[in-house]
Each structure stands twice: as C-alpha cells, then as structure tokens.
C-alpha cells in the first residue's frame, strides 16, 4: 500500500457514503400530505370563525390529524417494504416525525381541550413544534436552509403573540406558506436532482 492507494481507498469510502446518502434523500411526500391537511384545517377553522362555530374547531383538527397519522403509518410501511437501503438518518427522521406528530396532537388538541391554555395559543405552540421539526430535519439531512426555516417558525411564534383574534389565523397562513410550502417545493426539487444524479 502506498500514498496513492490509500487515497483511492478513501475515495471509495467517500463515494459509497455519498451514493447511499443520495439514494435515501428526503422526497418530501409526507411534508406535502401534512401541508395539504393543515391548509384544509386552517381553511376549516377560518370558515368556522366566520360562522361563529368555534366549538367545532377541535373536530377539524382531530379529523386532519387522524387522516395524517393513518396515511403516515401506511406510507412508512410501504416505504419499508420496498426500500433497498435504510439509513440511520431515515430512522432518526421517522422518529422525529412521530415525536412532532405527537407534539402537534398534544399542543394543538389534547392540552387546550383539557383546559391547559386558551385555543388562541394553539398556533403559537404549533409553530414552536414546527420549528423543532424543520431545524432538526435540516441537521439530519445536512441542509442549512431547512434550519433557517426552523428559525423562521420560531420567529413566527413570537410574531403571533403580538397579533390577536382572527388576524392571528391570517398571519399563521402567511407563515405557513413562507416557512412550510416554500421549503417543501425546494425539498422536492432537491430530491429530483439527487435522483437524476444516481
């Protein structure tokens, strides 16, 4: 073994690690599904607000959460069956999804229903959990931009405190488009690029 052969071995290691990473890049499918569901829930909440039927808001959120969880479980099972390779990053990401899903359920539905705080605080606390989701995902997939969107969610949570009433839903919708739908689009584009490089 000489210097050149050692470098060739290191090149092989780096190349294989890179190929594995590219083969398992995040497609953003679950992000999209949850994005559509949350958009529908926001729309439902806004309509119920117009109709002054606030007491049914919880039903909208329980509905989208149950649909989201069932789809996520089905999607995870299907991915597991057809996955040619499973990385530790994917396993960590899956646990993060589950943890944040439980977090959304607790702060968005269970805790306010149990009287822990007012319904007005839901969007603020959901933004904090969303910030954690994006920030950690950015770390797992080594994508700094996703971490920036995590910071945007946290800044948004602070901004939501300053806005009251129905305007808070409006600001939340803007935050959702900027810090959720935008990164999803970028994530999808990045995934497609990674797949074509394979």
């Amino acid at each position, binding site marked *: 073994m000489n*210097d050149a052969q050692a470098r060739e071995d290191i090149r092989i290691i780096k190349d294989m*690690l890179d190929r594995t*990473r590219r083969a398992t890049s995040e497609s953003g499918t679950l992000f999209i599904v949850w994005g559509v569901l949350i958009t529908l829930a926001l729309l439902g909440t806004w309509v119920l607000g117009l109709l002054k039927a606030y007491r049914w808001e919880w039903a909208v959120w329980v509905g989208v959460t149950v649909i989201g969880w069932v789809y996520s479980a089905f999607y995870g099972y299907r991915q597991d069956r057809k996955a040619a390779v499973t990385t530790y990053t994917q396993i960590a990401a899956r646990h993060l999804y589950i943890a944040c899903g439980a977090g959304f359920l607790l702060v968005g539905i269970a805790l306010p229903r149990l009287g822990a705080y007012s319904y007005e605080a839901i969007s603020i606390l959901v933004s904090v959990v969303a910030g954690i989701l994006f920030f950690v995902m950015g770390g797992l997939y080594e994508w700094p931009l996703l971490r920036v969107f995590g910071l945007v969610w946290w800044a948004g949570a602070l901004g939501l405190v300053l806005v009251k009433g129905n305007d808070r839903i409006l600001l939340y919708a803007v935050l959702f488009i900027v810090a959720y739908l935008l990164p999803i689009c970028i994530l999808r584009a990045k995934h497609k690029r990674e797949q074509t490089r394979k």
Partner: protein
Amino acid sequence: MTAETFEPLDPVIHSPLRLAVLSILLSAKQADFGFLKKATEATDGNLSTHLAKLEDAGYIRVKKSFLDKKPLTTCHLTEKGRAAFIRYVKALESYLPPGTKKD
C-alpha cells in the same frame, strides 16, 4: 516516513469491492443485494463471493427472505465489522503524508 510507522491493513477489508460494501453498510442499517450491486457496479457472482468473505469474517450478517414471492438478500453490518472498518480507516491514515489526514 519509515515502514515501521505503517499500520497493518485488515486483509478482509483490503479489497475495493469489500471496502465499498462496508462503506455503504456503515451509514445504512441495512441494504439489499440489488442496491449493493447497483452502488458498487459489481456483477452478481463477484458481489456474492465478496459478501460471503465478509460474512465468514463475521463483519456482516446476510439475511435471506422473500418479498412478494421474490428472493430478497439483505445485509447488515455487525459490531465486529464496524470496529474492523474503523480500525481500517485509522490504519489508512498512517499511509498518508502528514497534514493530509483530515482530507
């Protein structure tokens, strides 16, 4: 650098294909035969031979099963394999000129 400073390389890993397989399995909990074949660009026979050598050394665990009535071969890195791979990379560093080890 003198010959005495070179660390001995594990002969089981010291082959481009076996090194490639272990590199993939280092970051993956599991990988199937098809993925390993595609990533390493090896032939079926060649890959099978090298996987058998790694399995005999106890560096990987090979599980054979069926998925939708098709045979599926899945490979996992063992703790022994992980330790051997780390030792191999450390040994490789001794072959590089000083100052280039962090490349």
